């Protein structure tokens, strides 16, 4: 009973049977009743069950998640997934890189999370998540991916938990036996905090083509890109992937720019984008209608949408009826009534009483 079995001739597929059964359950879906038996038996929303929480370091853990129906194990190595976790009755969403390699026959999905001091969700994921918890998932996304076939020579520049998408790539190269000539320059504050350290050493032992440079910034200081010429003399000839904290990525980008090699660089900014300080207003992108609107801090999202000619749903226009609610994919909006800010991705917002704070994107 898996959702991705191919229908054989002369046999009604499970998927089709389930779809046909919705005449019995209308206006709900059969999935709404099947989840009474097993919470994963629904493809209405992507779900997963946390099977295991494996501690990697003191402050990082790998979550092994068993996705429910509707999940396709076809993420590209390096992509991230959205994960929605219920805390105090409310779903909070974040995106994390998948650290497991894609596998058509796979049953599980792994993401590795480091608890950030200010990140209340990451702390919850690392320390507070019980195996058996049902989480929501969003489909894999992102352009920070390994091409197939991989380049002959590649370089990965990694800082801290930026290792997770790179790990997915390295595991893929390992599994497919296409490792080639790979250099990983991986910096961490201390050896204890270095996620996947043992596994990387094993990979190196298995694939002589993989060189791992470990850099410990507490002892050695911040790695200077000027030293790259000594560490990786042929870095200019390598396709490069960089993932880590924002200051590191800024430095990498300008270094590659100066060398005129920006074409060879792929960057993943996994840290949260810092919102504009106190400034209100911003550009609203209406994803499905392909329009944009500039709004100042006094123009509601609804008004901005209407001015841009988007068919915004609306009702009472004073925050009572919720007719105007749409999904905000990214960005922050502020509720004019009480100043509350909504900064979660994939959040439902009442457009008639909210104003944008910085750029945001709506699913309409």
């Amino acid at each position, binding site marked *: 009973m898996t959702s991705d079995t191919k229908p054989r001739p002369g046999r009604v597929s499970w998927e089709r049977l389930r779809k046909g059964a919705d005449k019995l359950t*209308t*206006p709900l879906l059969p999935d709404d009743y099947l989840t*009474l038996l097993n919470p994963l038996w629904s493809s209405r929303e992507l779900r997963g069950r946390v099977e295991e929480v494996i501690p990697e370091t003191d402050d990082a853990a790998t979550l092994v998640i068993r996705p429910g129906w509707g999940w396709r194990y076809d993420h590209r190595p390096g992509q991230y997934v959205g994960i929605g976790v*219920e805390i105090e009755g*409310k779903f909070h969403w974040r995106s994390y890189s998948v650290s497991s390699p894609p596998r058509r026959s796979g049953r599980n999905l792994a993401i590795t999370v480091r608890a950030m001091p200010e990140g209340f969700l990451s702390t919850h994921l690392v320390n507070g998540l019980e195996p058996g918890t049902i989480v929501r998932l969003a489909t894999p996304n992102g352009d920070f991916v390994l091409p197939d076939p991989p380049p002959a020579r590649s370089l990965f520049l990694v800082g801290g938990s930026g290792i997770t998408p790179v790990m997915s790539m390295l595991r893929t190269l390992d599994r497919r036996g296409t490792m080639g000539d790979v250099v990983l320059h991986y910096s961490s504050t201390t050896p204890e905090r270095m996620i996947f350290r043992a596994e990387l050493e094993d990979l190196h032992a298995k694939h002589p083509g993989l060189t791992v440079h470990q850099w410990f910034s507490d002892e050695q200081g911040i790695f200077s890109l000027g030293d790259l010429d000594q560490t990786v003399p042929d870095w200019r000839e390598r396709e490069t992937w960089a993932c880590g904290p924002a200051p590191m990525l800024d430095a990498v980008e300008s270094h590659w720019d100066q060398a005129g090699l920006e074409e060879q660089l792929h960057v993943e900014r996994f840290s949260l984008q810092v919102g504009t300080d106190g400034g209100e207003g911003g550009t609203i992108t209406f994803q499905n209608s392909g329009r944009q609107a500039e709004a100042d801090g006094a123009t509601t999202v609804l008004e901005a949408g209407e001015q841009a000619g988007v068919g915004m749903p*609306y009702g*009472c226009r004073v925050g009572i*009826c*919720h007719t105007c*609610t749409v999904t905000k994919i990214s960005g922050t909006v502020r509720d004019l009534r009480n100043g509350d800010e909504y900064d979660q991705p994939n959040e439902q917002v009442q457009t008639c009483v909210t104003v944008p704070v910085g750029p945001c994107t709506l699913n309409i």
Partner: protein
Amino acid sequence: MAIADVKEYCHLTEADVEAIGRELDSIRERVEAARGAEDAAYIRRVIRTQRWMAAAARIGMIVSSPLEPKYRRPILAASSISLGLAKILENMEIGHNVMHGQWDWMNDPEIHSSSWEWDTGQPAEQWKHSHNYIHHQFTNVLGFDNDIGYGVLRMAREQRWHPHYLGQPIYNALLAGLFQWGVALHDLDLEAIRKGKKDPVEMKRQLKQIARKGRNQIFKDYVLYPALSGKQWKSTLKANAAANLMRNVWSYLIIFCGHFPDGALHFTEEELEDETRAEWYLRQILGTANFEGSTLLHIMSGNLGYQIEHHLFPDLVSNHYGEISPEVRALCDKYQIPYTTGPLYKQYGQVLRTIHKLSLPNRFTKDDRPPTGEGVTIEQHERVRHEDTHDRRPELGGWSRSKADARA
């Protein structure tokens, strides 16, 4: 004229009105801040219970069909009751409240006002317009709020009498029995159609939507499940009809007790002018009636026994209405504002009396509720649609996501 000119409020100063508004706002803020895991667990528990009841009922009818009558009949009766209760729970405590956005704070896409579809003839999208917007914004305003008599009954003395209202007791019984279909036609606005004011494109779109939803509902209860019961198809059909009737009569009863008992006032368009948020609160209190009962009764009526609290805070989680009700009542006492409540039988008794009295011309009966004003008639108040008086571009669809596509 504004709400403050209504007799029941004349003793209040402008400062009083604003103070009441602030106190109500603070109740709202407190409940919003207190919402958490327990509330999420509550609504999930209600939904799970409701789905098990419905599933058990459907399965009960099918598996009992080959049994001997002495086993089959009790199972069938229990299944029918279970299905009726499940439909009541779905429509009242779950569907109505979810579509109000009471649970949107959970950010759960499966329990959300934008995606919920309920087990009744009315498409959710039309309900959200006619109920959440029209009825809750213009509560009891003559000529605006279609809930005054649902375009079928004469529920206000201000509505002009016509001989066909002599049949009102019969229409009332029919409306109770067929309530889900009455509600299904609600957003069509029968009165506007009668007067030829309805946009024909919009009407066609709405009718199509109702037909699609209604067809699925009827097919499920009266074709598919009876067919699955084989030779006993007739019993299953009857059991399903009984469950629907049970839900219809119950939801009719609860809804009619919200705004038609004697204490609930009607308002005129003039009273809406320049209405502030605090004045809107006052109008909700004065236009609405509660009823008393046990916790179970309140859950089975979607907590609409706390109709006043619901009208003050339509998008606050329903399981908190009971706990804030004493505070709202104390506030009303403090400012000497009527807070209408009573046992369910008494409230419905008053509704029934009004229905019968108003089947006759006004001169034969005495008014039981405070009058709206000297010589006010509903005909003076040509229905003005809010969207007609506000700038709105045609491409802006309105209440629905699908409307823009339908028109394109």
